[in-house]
């Protein structure tokens, strides 16, 4: 079987982050599942590392990166739920986000915000609580933690910390 030219791999790798999954697989947005599958087979055939054993070093790394993105495109587009989410994302992000950001990853971002505190007051009381724990004053810590929560009632990380504090205190009692 014919391998793919190194120059083509390099060009493709440079473009990769600007291609959406449809462009990568060279199909329409409306392509049915059977077409997605065929396109995946074709793209795999072209970019499969096994089919391109002549490539070495940086070219090989580039090839492997493309191969992984091809799998990713297929994984998203073959699944109706993911595909809908992806189409929605492409519609809103103005083409800047070519890869599907999964709900779980979004949840992580949310968690990250929780972890640091989102409001100035929430953050302030959270930090006070940390200082209290440092000093060993668990009672004050629990109170400050509770205050932090009143500013950010949805903050599950704060809630978790308070629960831990409270549970620990009750256990000691």
């Amino acid at each position, binding site marked *: 079987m014919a391998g793919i030219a190194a120059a083509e791999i390099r060009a493709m790798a440079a473009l990769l982050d600007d291609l959406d999954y449809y462009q990568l697989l060279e199909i329409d947005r409306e392509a049915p599942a059977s077409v997605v599958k065929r396109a995946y087979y074709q793209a795999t055939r072209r970019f499969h590392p096994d089919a391109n054993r002549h490539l070495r070093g940086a070219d090989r790394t580039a090839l492997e990166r493309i191969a992984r993105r091809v799998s990713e495109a297929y994984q998203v587009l073959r699944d109706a739920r993911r595909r809908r989410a992806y189409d929605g994302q492409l519609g809103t992000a103005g083409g800047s986000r070519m890869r599907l950001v999964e709900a779980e990853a979004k949840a992580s971002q949310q*968690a990250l915000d929780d972890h*640091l505190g989102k409001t100035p007051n929430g953050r*302030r009381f959270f930090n006070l609580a940390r200082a209290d724990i440092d000093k060993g004053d668990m009672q004050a810590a629990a109170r400050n933690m509770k205050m932090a929560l009143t500013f950010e009632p949805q903050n599950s990380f704060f809630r978790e910390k308070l629960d831990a504090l409270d549970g620990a205190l009750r256990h000691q009692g």
Partner: protein
Amino acid sequence: MAEIAIGIDLGTSNSCVAVARGRQVEVLPNAYGENVTASVVAFRDDGTITVGNPAKANLIHDPHNTVASAKRLIGRYFFSEEVKKAQAIYAYQIVEGPGHGVRINVREEQFSLPEISAMVLREMKSIAEERLGQEVRKAVITVPAYFNDNQRQATKDAGRIAGLEVLRLLNEPTAGALAYGFGRGLDQRVAVYDLGGGTFDISILEIGKDVFEVLSTCGDTYLGGDDFDDRLIDLLADEFMATHQVNLRQDPFALEKLKLASENAKKGLSVEEQVEIRIPDVIQSEAGESLSVERTLGVQEYSTLVMDLIQRTFKVCDEALQQANLVARDLDGVILVGGPTRLPLIRRAVSDYFQQEAKTEMDPDEVVAMGAAIHAASLVGDTPEDSEDAFLLDVTPLSLKIGVAGGLAETVIERNTPVPIEQTRTFTTYQDHQESVRIRVFQGESHKADENEMLGQFEFSGFRKARRGDVRIDVTFEINSDGLVSVTACDQETGSQASTELTLSSGLSEEEMAGILGENRTGRVETDAAAKPAPSPARVPPAGPEDPAMALEVLDAGEPVPELCELEVDRQEPAAADADDDRPTLSDAEEAPVPQEGSGAGEAPMPQIENEIQLEPADLQELEGIEVDDLDGNPDDSVPLETGAESLFGAAGTDLSELDDGEK
């Protein structure tokens, strides 16, 4: 002529080697003319090592120095269930190695599992070289599809130790499908039902003209033909106990004889309706009287003994079909792989389950090696001009996860995702001037971290110093075509890269590997042995007392994590998540490698937490009075502390101690 590359099915009980040349695929028989070779390694008293059927025969005479079913232990942690089970069944000495790994002690020497497997691989390599009349350096080695990264990595290490370049780790059912469908221009959906000596896999594949796409894979690495034998062993031993008041299980020699008899009975029942089990002089009574086992066993009785095991495989099949969004009648064929599938009772059950006759034209012991050989040939370019290579599109069998706050694990790459694949997650620093980020990686399907297999723990360091939350680090998780995992990290702003291979705690460190390769103990197999000096006693692997991965874990326990900032939010109440869990989490296990079973182990972390928090009883009385509105806190005081508190509070301990003044 292209370079030759072989396919090796490295099995739990038996191994098989094959080669594909042109359109011919042939299984290469050993010196005795047998197509399969027992995966048993015998360490003789003269320092020589033998592999195969002669070694298996040695089990009965010298069970302490004969290692069978090493594949069940490869890539496992010492505290795993499988290791405990093996300790009860095998007479050879299984001990703990560095990083909670497993080592085998034989004749005053200590061997890692990859070394034992390497001895089997070396035997298969030399069988091939003997038959082909030329040196063989490259191979495709098959692994159960459901093997995790630790087990795969250890198998790859075994190949390296055996002097083989491992072109690919190929999933056994995929290899089976390849042998079945290669070059036949099929357009079918098939299930590969692969029941081996120690593992069960089911894969659903779509076979196109030259494409083999795995739609889903599920499995159970704790279920195989050995378990069938164990059932019969138990029956025979119990009956013997009732008749003679002698426990055969306690005598390693008698136990080996029971095992052999059970295995032979199983094989016998593959062709007969009834077998005679006879073990003359299995043991002596206290009075010095010679006792024997004698019994007939019919198919029906055997079937009731093992039916629940067979049913267990169908639960796994249900899952695989569901993952592939198919039902049994969507399938065009069912391929049987693995010795136990010769049993008519299994064939019948499989045919009933899939509502069609299973295909029996392929030899279930050889089909995997043949598929591996076909793939090996295509990887070195030795396929005929007029035919195209078959493309294998495989999936990752297990979800890849990262540990997050609250002892939970969050999925980064879902199971049954096509490989190769990558997924990037963004982390941030948690403290001002934090220079490193720590990530624990797991494989499995549980949302609780400790119910998954821990692959390793990484610390990425060398990022620029900035206020917490300012440094954004992209961590990319990658699974390659071998199913092996690697992780790289990159600072979003500076682009500075840190990368690491997964260094598994249960595997071999680079130093150990270097030592093993330098020492070449596997080279003692067979005839080589005579030329080598006798082994030095009580040799320990050349690595230090702790491998680096381990050192990190210890640090983690004593001085809690400057935890990275991904954590679970909306899955469930953190306290509730841990409430029903009375086992230590893996992070608990880090401070003391407590076996993860039984309730006794769960008590260990308690006192430590009490010390950490250092509350006076008086304070607590006061605190009891404080009510927190709509708190879902756990009414059972002791529960959250056993596990949850370690991670919640352990983590809190650090954040809190490193207070950030700038924010106030």
